[in-house]
């Protein structure tokens, strides 16, 4: 699942990894959409974190469709 933080809370795109492996068109389309949003937000300066249960969060530079969850946070600045 991809979760993108925004003023609306977090926007989500989810996909079934098994269906993606099986080539299910809807699941593949969801992954493509998540990948597009990932690239778009990264271009705006967002930071991406891979979250897997029981493991510490990890910053990632590239979209990982095998991740349990990816959280995109907007760019931060000094207040």
């Amino acid at each position, binding site marked *: 699942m991809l*979760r993108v*933080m925004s*003023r609306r*809370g*977090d926007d989500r795109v989810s996909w079934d990894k098994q269906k993606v492996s099986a080539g299910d068109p809807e699941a593949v389309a969801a992954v493509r959409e998540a990948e597009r949003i990932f690239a778009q937000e990264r271009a705006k300066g967002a930071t991406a974190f891979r*979250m897997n249960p029981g493991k*510490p969060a990890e910053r990632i530079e590239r979209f990982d469709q095998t991740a349990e*969850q990816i*959280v995109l946070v907007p760019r931060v*600045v000094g207040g």
Partner: protein
Amino acid sequence: MLTTLSWLLIIAVISPVIWLIFQPYLKKWSRAERRAANLLRDVLTPEQCHQLLWHGYLEVQSPSAAGRVYRVPRVQGGFVQVIEDGRAVMRLCVQPVERLPEADVIVLHKLMIEANEEHYLQNANKYLCVDHPSPLS
């Protein structure tokens, strides 16, 4: 006896005051806040949720310095305190470029500190705590 016009006038005057009083509570129930609260619950351990609820802050251990802890306030707009070996040494002001629900801001601090500490510190405005001892509890 008050006329309708007088009543309307009174309502017009007190409405902003009532809104100011209840707005923070109403905000908690907005869809965005609920979604952000769900993400926060997914990211925090039960102990961290308890700390946030009862102490009003979340302590995040620095991944690079054993004695350093970041104390993230629950309330948006507050400073993040940096505590080293039990003493408050610095306050940080870091915020997202776009407005986020309160719970999302806490998640943002936690993730940035745990997985992108160097960048987090580079971007923060830092205020050194020179001579006051930490009000640790």
